[in-house]
């Protein structure tokens, strides 16, 4: 028998206290690492949402709101710009590629983004990672529907499943006009990325355009059908100011209608040019040949005469935005620190109590010939053992917990909690726990040995 087996037997003898102490250590470790994981995942997920896009361009708006709607799909663009503008800039000498996008539609509760098929080659995430199709591929560049992993998982969609987009995007997913005449089928499913990409449906810009030009026709027809049935055949030349607008036609969103009318008017003006280039888009992503020219081009776009535009460098705005969110991050760090302190105090108390009930045992071992070093080794060894068991228990608890809750978190917040290696801060905390467990085991040993030196081996009962 050696000290280790002695220590293990002693711990087994005090199963309940040992288990409880280890459990409390486990809980605080799991909690601290969990909070840390959440914090870093939040940051990673946020920062990894867009990569290798040098500029984002939209119509004149605030830089944060442009970032939010273009990357995170929070909020919506106040105005559209014309696709021809995007194509114009794609011919700019500094520009490598341009990827226009169109927002505004929804599928169930998920936002729909209209893009070109080349978008998936140019748009990167997490410092340069490609968007990868886990299933399927884009066969028709003018008609596709690619869904994020989260969409696929939540709605249990497979390749080929029909997708009927709704005009407008709402959280509950209905209450809007549906583009039922233009069903699409899931052509590809993206790999999980832990970014807002997971929570979007990507369809071709052409499909979006087709649907919208149709909607104008059908809604126009609907609004007219009740009173002006004889004019239906004439819908191609529908006027903006309809003097016979019926009172019960206000079920349509006014801005929406206005947009349609505006567009329709535009279409009517250049009916033979109903091509991609006259299509409204929400904005476009720009990749440059050389990153160094970003600032220059940004200024050029911001001062663009033909259309009021805003260009931002996503990394810069992201950084600004994250700084404003730092309050939340700091609060989480504070919670983590508190958890750490409480964990250490709890462990200290239980290890101390555990060790100080053992003065009798220590006297016996001393009488047999154990020197203070062996007593130290025994008590601190036990404390250390409990602490290590607790730490591993905590890590196991966290992993199991993450397995259970991370699907929920992904679904609800689009946050992937990755099982990463502990950060420096976490290592420090674990080392601190180990250090304090050693001290917590050593102190009673010192007290017991001192006591034995003072009063001999007779311990009072």
């Amino acid at each position, binding site marked *: *028998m*050696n*000290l280790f087996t*002695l220590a293990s*037997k*002693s711990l*087994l*003898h*005090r199963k309940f206290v040992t288990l409880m102490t280890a459990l409390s250590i486990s809980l605080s470790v799991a909690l601290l690492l969990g909070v840390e994981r959440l914090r870093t995942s939040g940051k990673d997920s946020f920062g990894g949402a867009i990569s290798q896009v040098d500029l984002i361009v939209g119509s004149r708006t605030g830089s944060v709101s442009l970032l939010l709607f273009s990357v995170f799909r929070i909020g919506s663009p106040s105005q559209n710009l014309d696709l021809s503008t995007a194509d114009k800039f794609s011919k700019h000498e500094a520009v490598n590629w341009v990827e226009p996008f169109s927002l505004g539609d929804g599928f169930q509760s998920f936002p729909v983004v209209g893009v070109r098929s080349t978008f998936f080659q140019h748009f990167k995430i997490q410092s340069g990672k490609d968007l990868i199709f886990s299933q399927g591929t884009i066969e028709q560049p003018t008609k596709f529907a690619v869904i994020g992993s989260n969409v696929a998982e939540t709605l249990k969609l497979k390749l080929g499943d029909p997708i009927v987009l709704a005009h407008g995007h709402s959280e509950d997913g209905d209450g809007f006009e549906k583009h039922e005449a233009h069903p699409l089928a899931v052509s590809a499913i993206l790999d999980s990325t832990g970014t807002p990409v997971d929570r979007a449906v990507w369809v071709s810009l052409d499909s979006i355009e087709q649907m919208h030009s149709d909607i104008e026709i059908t809604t126009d027809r609907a609004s007219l059908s009740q009173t002006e049935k004889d004019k239906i055949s004439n819908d191609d030349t529908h006027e903006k100011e309809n003097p016979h607008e019926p009172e019960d036609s206000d079920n349509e969103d006014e801005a929406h209608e206005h947009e349609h009318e505006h567009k329709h008017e535009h279409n009517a003006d250049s009916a033979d040019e109903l091509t991609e280039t006259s299509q409204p888009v929400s904005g476009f992503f720009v990749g440059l040949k050389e990153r160094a020219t970003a600032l220059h081009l940004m200024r050029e776009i911001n001062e663009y005469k033909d259309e009021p535009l805003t260009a931002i460098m996503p990394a810069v705005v992201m950084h600004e935005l994250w700084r404003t969110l730092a309050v939340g991050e700091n609060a989480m760090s504070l919670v983590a620190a508190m958890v750490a302190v409480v964990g250490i105090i709890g462990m200290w108390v239980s290890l101390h109590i555990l060790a100080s009930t053992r003065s*009798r*045992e220590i*006297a*016996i*071992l*001393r*009488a*047999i*010939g*154990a*020197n*203070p070093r*062996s007593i130290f080794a025994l008590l601190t060894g036990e404390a250390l053992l409990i602490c290590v068991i607790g730490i591993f228990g905590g890590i196991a608890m966290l992993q199991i917990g993450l397995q259970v809750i991370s699907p929920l978190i992904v679904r609800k917040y689009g946050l992937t909690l990755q099982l990463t290696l502990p950060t420096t801060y976490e290592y420090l905390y674990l080392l601190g726990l180990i250090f304090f467990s050693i001290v917590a085991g050593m102190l009673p040993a010192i007290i017991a040995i001192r006591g*034995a*030196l*003072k*009063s*001999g*081996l*007779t311990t009072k*009962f």
Partner: protein
Amino acid sequence: MTVIHLKDIEYSYKANTPILDIEEFKIEADDSTFLFGPSGCGKSTLLGLIAGILKTSKGELQILDTNFANATAIERDRVRAKYIGYIFQAFNLVPYLSVEENVALPAMFGRTHSLKFSDDSEEVRYLCDALGISQFMANPVSELSIGQQQRVAAARALFGSPKIILADEPTSALDTDSRSDFIKLLLDVAKSAQLSILFVSHDLSLASHFCHQVSLRSINRARQ
């Protein structure tokens, strides 16, 4: 041969109020000594000094070949581990170990089984046989009566044939019959192992079992 030799020993817990002041006290090899005195006269303190747990720098405290008065704590611990068996009044045993493991415990701290036996477990079995506890060897100590527990403690003290057994009122928790049984057993085994016993008690009725009887009061010059 003298195994314990105290000369001009003084010990005090508080300054200037010595509890022990002994001019001379000797124990020879193969000898059994009964040291008696009322409670609080310094018996346990004297045992603590002889065991090397307590330390005094005044006088001479020769234990076997080592003078404990100027030996380091490590040296004293080593001598105790190798050559001294100690029996407490009660609660001698480590509660989470079996009888067998308790008896073999000194092997963990530097004592080896005596040369008569080929290994530790053989000696443990022999001692348990000799002390009549062999049927409990694998049992946890909590299942034993106090008398049986004291015999386990004796077996442990005797393990590895130490030179000296220090017994601090080991029978005070036992009833009268078990008392003399226990002492007889202890002395028998001690005799066959050729070691010295210093048995401390306030119960004079036990004195007749031993070769020598010493009153601590008569050798302690400290005022009580």
